[in-house]
C-alpha cells in the first residue's frame, strides 16, 4: 500500500518513514503541504499521514484539497497534531480527515490506527470493485434491454394491410423499455385480415419474453405452424383461415399459467372478412371492445372468456359482429382506462369513449393519436405504470 507522509519536521518525518517501511508500506515523504499535494496528484496513495502545522499548505488545507480531488480510490487521511482541543478535531473531521494522532505519537498506537485505516481502505476497495462490476452488469443489461426493445418494436405492424373495405390505425406505448403488450394486424389471405391486441400480466423481462413468444406465434410469417391458417381438409394444397376460437383455444393450450411462473395474458384475436365486413373474434379476459357506429352511437362489448392460461381446456366462445360502413372498432389494453393522474384517479372507460366519440369525424389515425395524447395529458407527470396499446378498425366500403 502506498502511503504519503506530509511532515515538515525532519525527525518526526524520519521516524514515520522508518516505522511505515518496517511495516511493509511504501512511503513517499513530503517536507511541506505544497509538496505533499503535488505528490498526491501524481501518485496512487490510499493512505495519507499529514502534520497539521506546515509551511506552504497546512494539513487542513491539504485534506480539503484531497477530498475535492475526485478519483476512483478513497484516501484515508490521518492528521498528526499537537492540538487536542475539540474545536480543532471538529475542524479536521469536517475538512475530511478520518482520524487523528497526537504528537508525540506512540508507535503502537500509530500501527493500530493504520490497521483501522487499512481495514476501511480494503472495504472501500471491495465496494469499488463491486460497484464497478454492478455498473458493468448494468451497462450490459441496458444494452440487452435496448436490443430487446428494438426487437419488440420490430414485431409491431410494419405495414398495414391495404384494403378498400377497411382502414386500420394503432398506437403502442410501453411503460418501460420492454413491454408486456403487443399488437398486430396482418393479411391472412386475399379477403381475411387477422388482428390482435395482447397484454401479458406483469412487466419487465419475463413479461416481454412471453409477449415476444406470442408475437412470433401470431405472426403471419409463422403461419406454416398452422395456427393462423391451416390446410383445407378437402384439398390439402389449399389453406384456410383458422377461426379465432381455434387460435385462442390453441394459445390457451400452449400457455398454461403454471408453466409460465404465474404469467398469463389477455387477448382479443379477430378476423375481418373484407368481403362481408363480418368481424369474428374472441376476447380472452381482455377489456371490452368499443364499437362506434357510423352515426356515432357507442357500445362496449364485453369479453367472452378467461385470460389465457387460467383454465385448462376452456372453450372460448366466438363472437360475430356485422359491421357497416363508417363503423369503428377499438381494441385496447387495460393500460388505457387504468392510466392514473397525479391524484391516482384512473382515466376510465367513460373518458376513453368520450375521446373516441369526440374525434369520430377525424381520420382514424388522428382519433387514435388524439386518444393517446388525451391519456398522456391526464397522467401529467405521473409515470405510466402499464403499457398502453390500441388497435382501431374503420369500415370504409
Amino acid at each position: 500500500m502506498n502511503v504519503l507522509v506530509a511532515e515538515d519536521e525532519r525527525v518526526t518525518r524520519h521516524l514515520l518513514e522508518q516505522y511505515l517501511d518496517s511495516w511493509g508500506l511504501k512511503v513517499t515523504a513530503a517536507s511541506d503541504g505544497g509538496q505533499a499535494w503535488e505528490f498526491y496528484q501524481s501518485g496512487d496513495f490510499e493512505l495519507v499521514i499529514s502534520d497539521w502545522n506546515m509551511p506552504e499548505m497546512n494539513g487542513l488545507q491539504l485534506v480539503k484539497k484531497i477530498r475535492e480531488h475526485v478519483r476512483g480510490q478513497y484516501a484515508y487521511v490521518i492528521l498528526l497534531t499537537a492540538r487536542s482541543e475539540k474545536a480543532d478535531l471538529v475542524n479536521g473531521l469536517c475538512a475530511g480527515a478520518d482520524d487523528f494522532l497526537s504528537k508525540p505519537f506512540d508507535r503502537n498506537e500509530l500501527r493500530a490506527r493504520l490497521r483501522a485505516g487499512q481495514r476501511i481502505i480494503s472495504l472501500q476497495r471491495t465496494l469499488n470493485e463491486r460497484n464497478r462490476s454492478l455498473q458493468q452488469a448494468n451497462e450490459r443489461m441496458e444494452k440487452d434491454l435496448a436490443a430487446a426493445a428494438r426487437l419488440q418494436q420490430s414485431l409491431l405492424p410494419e405495414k398495414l394491410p391495404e384494403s378498400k373495405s377497411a382502414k386500420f390505425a394503432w398506437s403502442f406505448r410501453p411503460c418501460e423499455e420492454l413491454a408486456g403488450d403487443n399488437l398486430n394486424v396482418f393479411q391472412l389471405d386475399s379477403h381475411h385480415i387477422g388482428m390482435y391486441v395482447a397484454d401479458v400480466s406483469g412487466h419487465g423481462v419475463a413479461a416481454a419474453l412471453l409477449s415476444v413468444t406470442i408475437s412470433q406465434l401470431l405472426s403471419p410469417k409463422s403461419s406454416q405452424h398452422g395456427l393462423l391458417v391451416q390446410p383445407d381438409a378437402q384439398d390439402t394444397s389449399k389453406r384456410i383461415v383458422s377461426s379465432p376460437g381455434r387460435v385462442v383455444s390453441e394459445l390457451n393450450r400452449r400457455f398454461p399459467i403454471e408453466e409460465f411462473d404465474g404469467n398469463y395474458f389477455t387477448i382479443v384475436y379477430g378476423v375481418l372478412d373484407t368481403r362481408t365486413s363480418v368481424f369474428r373474434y374472441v376476447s380472452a379476459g381482455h377489456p371490452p371492445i368499443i364499437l362506434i357506429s357510423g352515426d356515432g352511437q357507442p357500445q362496449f362489448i364485453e369479453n367472452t372468456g378467461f385470460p389465457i392460461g387460467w383454465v385448462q381446456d376452456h372453450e372460448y366462445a366466438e363472437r360475430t359482429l356485422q359491421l357497416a360502413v363508417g363503423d369503428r372498432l377499438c381494441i385496447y389494453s387495460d393500460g388505457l382506462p387504468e392510466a392514473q393522474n397525479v391524484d391516482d384517479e384512473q382515466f376510465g372507460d367513460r373518458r376513453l369513449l368520450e375521446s373516441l366519440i369526440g374525434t369520430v369525424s377525424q381520420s382514424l389515425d388522428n382519433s387514435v393519436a388524439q386518444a393517446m395524447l388525451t391519456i398522456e395529458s391526464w397522467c401529467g407527470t405521473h409515470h405510466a405504470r402499464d403499457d398502453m396499446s390500441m388497435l382501431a378498425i374503420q369500415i370504409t366500403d
Partner: protein
Amino acid sequence: MPIVDAQQLMENLDGDLELLRDAFEIFCEESRSLQSELRAAAQANNVQELNQTAHRLNGMLSNFFADEACQTAIQLEEIQGSDVGATAAPLIEQLSGQIETVQSEIQQIMASRGS
C-alpha cells in the same frame, strides 16, 4: 533529574538503537539551525516566524520525550505581541540549554545501551 524519559523513548523506538542514532543525528543538525532561526526571528521581532520555529522544535523534542524542553518551546510558540524579542530572549537561552542537556542525555543513553 534528566529531561529525557529514556524508558519511554526506547519503548517507543522498540529498542532500535540504530533508529535512535539516525534520529539523533538529524536532531543535532536541525536543532542548530532552528535555534539560529529562533534567535533571528526574535531579533527581527518576527512573531510568526518565532512561533513557527518554536513549534518545529517542540515537535522534534517531543520525539525524544523531553517534556521540560517541550514546555519551554511551547511558551515560545505561544508568545504574542509587538515586542517579542525581549520576552523571547531568556526563553530562547533556556531552551538552548535544555537542548544541550537533551543531546548529552541521548548520547549517554546510546552509550549505555552499546551504540
